């Protein structure tokens, strides 16, 4: 394999990995901030417990997003130097702004929140969390501005062979970015909603299994408490049932939001990158039908052997144009159009190295786009449906005693993560062979594009990229295990894991770390 192929694998692996942590950070951070706000407003202890418990899990996950985020910023220069040179004038700005205007805010105020319990006035302490959460949301905006410029290059002029920014407003209000931002935030909230739902389900199930909660003849919960198990009092039940129902409602609303934003995103994409959407459909010929199942060699990339088994007539036109009759161009129509506009062969330019003169394949890898698109929608929809069912099942105050159902709720937490990952894989792989996609409809700036084949660092050898791919992947795999082990430990520990002072079985009688009266003792320390 050449450096190019390995660098692409590396980008895919480290980015999908990073984006396991990011949506949970954004979504869960928002929910923890809301919970702490509720606590300050109502003074109800269950909200404090929820803030502390979910806040603890939030932090365990947050740090992994921070650690893996540094790789993201460095790798453009390290592995994709030609890309960095080509787009630097317009692409570097949102990255620098993300660091200066978002990362600083996020990291500084989160530090204040973590160590500021009891040190800062309650309202200031809460404000710190909100500011940190807003910082993480703003960072999503900036990075999506950068990514959307690769999908839909706007606000530039080609000067001396490079795009130069001439209209910052166009770059920072790129319609692709606006929709992607909405889509990403709703996707993040769906992840957090599912997270609350799954874990709370486990906790409620555990309370039933340990005989603490029972149900009466009408199926209504009878909340109990156990002196033998740390933290299992009556308020503990309120923590979990409230968390569960908040999680389920958030997951459903977030899915609705991501469906709307996804539809808007799709409509833009039909216009801006018709090939991506044709490949998402494995649509070889022009038509109006949405494919429910296409078989055959979807991956042949020349469309000779794809058979549409089941289709919904008119739906594809609706997704693209809100009517049922406009024909959508298929792959077979688009390929000659792309060849005419952007060339049939890679130019004979030293920047392409050995790849110069190769024929360009304009069709993305269709099994990836086709199934990626369907997994994104499918996982998202399944999670939302499960959330609706969970609301119904738990309306009498607890969960059934069924162990398989509890396991399903835990495994179901993965679905929104899967939807997010599949969506990114689809949209990034669907943009190939371009790293900066040309927009044939002229809504972007005409003739601004770059082939992925010319983006990789010319001076970096395959061996170097293999080295980084292997080390980063290994380290990431180990750290994922560590994170999951830690999360599991804290989840099994329940609220006590985040509030040891609740444990009345301790020798110090649960007065907490160092006792409440010792002002000098830090409320929290590493």
């Amino acid at each position: 394999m050449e450096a190019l192929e390995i660098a692409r694998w590396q980008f895919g692996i480290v980015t999908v990995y990073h984006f396991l942590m990011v949506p949970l950070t954004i979504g869960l951070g928002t929910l923890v901030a809301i919970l702490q706000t509720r606590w300050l407003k109502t003074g109800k202890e269950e909200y404090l417990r929820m803030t502390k418990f979910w806040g603890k899990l939030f932090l365990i996950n947050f740090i992994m997003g921070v650690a893996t985020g540094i790789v993201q910023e460095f790798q453009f220069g390290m592995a994709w130097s030609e890309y960095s040179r080509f787009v630097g004038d317009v692409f570097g700005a949102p990255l620098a702004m993300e660091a200066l205007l978002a990362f600083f805010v996020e990291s500084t105020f989160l530090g204040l929140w973590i160590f500021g319990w009891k040190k800062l006035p309650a309202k200031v302490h809460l404000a710190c969390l909100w500011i940190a959460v807003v910082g993480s949301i703003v960072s999503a905006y900036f990075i999506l501005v950068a990514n959307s410029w690769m999908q839909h290059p706007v606000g530039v002029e080609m000067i001396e062979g490079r795009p130069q920014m001439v209209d910052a407003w166009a770059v920072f209000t790129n319609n692709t970015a606006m929709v992607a931002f909405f889509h990403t935030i709703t996707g993040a909230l769906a992840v957090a909603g599912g997270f609350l739902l799954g874990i709370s389900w486990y906790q409620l199930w555990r309370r039933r299994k340990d005989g603490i909660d029972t149900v009466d003849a009408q199926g209504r919960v009878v909340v109990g408490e156990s002196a033998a198990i740390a933290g299992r009092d009556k308020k503990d039940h309120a923590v979990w049932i409230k968390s569960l129902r908040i999680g389920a409602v958030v997951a459903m609303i977030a899915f609705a939001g991501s469906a709307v934003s996804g539809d808007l995103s799709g409509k833009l994409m039909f216009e801006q990158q018709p090939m991506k959407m044709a490949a998402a459909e494995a649509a070889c010929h022009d038509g109006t039908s949405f494919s429910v199942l296409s078989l055959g060699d979807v991956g042949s990339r020349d469309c000779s052997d794809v058979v549409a088994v089941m289709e919904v007539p008119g739906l594809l036109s609706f997704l693209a144009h809100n009517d049922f009759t406009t024909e959508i161009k298929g792959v077979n129509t688009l390929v000659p159009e792309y060849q005419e506009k952007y060339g049939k062969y890679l130019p004979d330019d030293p920047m392409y190295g050995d790849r110069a003169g190769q024929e360009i394949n304009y069709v993305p890898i269709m099994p990836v786009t086709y199934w990626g698109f369907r997994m994104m929608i499918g996982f998202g929809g399944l999670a939302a449906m499960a959330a609706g069912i969970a609301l119904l099942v738990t309306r009498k105050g607890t969960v059934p005693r069924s162990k398989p159902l509890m396991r399903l709720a835990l495994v179901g937490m993965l679905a929104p993560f899967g939807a997010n990952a599949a969506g990114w894989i689809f949209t990034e792989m669907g943009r190939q062979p371009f790293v900066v996609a040309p927009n044939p409809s002229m809504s972007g700036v005409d003739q601004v594009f770059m082939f992925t084949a010319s983006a990789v660092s010319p001076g970096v050898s395959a061996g170097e990229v293999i080295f980084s791919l292997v080390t980063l992947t290994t380290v990431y795999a180990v750290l994922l295990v560590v994170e999951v082990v830690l999360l599991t430990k804290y989840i099994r520990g329940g609220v006590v894991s985040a509030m040891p002072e609740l444990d009345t079985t301790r020798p110090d009688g649960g007065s907490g770390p160092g006792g409440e009266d010792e002002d000098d003792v830090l409320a929290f320390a590493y």
Partner: protein
Amino acid sequence: MDFLPTLWFILIAVLWIGYLFLEGFDLGVGMLMKTFARDEKERRVLLNTVGPVWDGNEVWLLTAAGATFAAFPFWYASLFSALYIPLVFVLLGLIFRAVAFEYRGKVHSNRWRKTWDWAIALGSFVAAFGIGAMLALTTTGLPLNANGDRVGGPFAWFTWYAVLGGLAVVGFALIHAAAFVALKTDGDIRHRARRLVGRWMPVGLLPLALWAITVAVQHGKWFSWILLAVAVGAAVAAWRANRADREGFSFLGMGVFLLAGAAAIFSAVYPVVLPSTLDPLWNLTVENASSSSYTLGLMSIVAAVGVPLVLAYQGWTYWVFRKRITVAHLPEPLDFGPAVAPEKALASEGTKA
């Protein structure tokens, strides 16, 4: 002289100095975890002196790199791709260190804590050394061709300048951290940190001074020598303040040393941002490596708003956590088991074993 590229060269220098000043002491504290702290309590004291602030400090690195990308894409592309392997190690160091800070206290076991202590110490060392090597090489040059790509293989960057730069940042970070610990703690650890500054400062700061002298000799500008003299004066003042038990002045003196030393280096190489050792024609300079004046103008506005804001709220953070920390301030680490009925917990532990 182009105004905007020069302004951005200065601004990026400021970001790097900000990074070395702030993360300098938390990288150093990381290294001191294994060399200076005597027991678990002292290690926790060290950790908690930087606990609330290390992550914010690290963003200076991200901002310096991001600003380089935005303002000088050719500099960013050439430097980062040429130093591919060392930067992989820097990334690994930063990853392990970050995760270790957060995870170290999350499990109650000596083996767990010991493992993460190594991650913090080694991660800090590798990151400091790698960043130092990178900064030194961007002042002394890399074998770059006309396109700005490294020639000569994955290790063509290796020179004694890389080692000197690595030692410069490691040495500075250690002394700076000791001065910081003396300022931020109390009791035995404070006194030992002060002794460390007094004994080791000349050794720790020597590589950075040598690097500055090397660059000044090569480029020979009179004001670089003046800045260098200021740096040496600041180091002497810091050392004397330390002896006089004035930790605040000592720490401040370290900051002035860094500021003047780095300014001497950056001003000496200006307008070259990354020399090519193969042909001076291929040097990257503030003019030929920079973004358009439109982009630089936009970024200048953003920086004019953003940088003072960052300084203000980061300054406030240091004010909030201004108290000295002692071993007595630390809450006991508390462990917890699963919140399940005890006999069942035992049973499930049994099946696991």
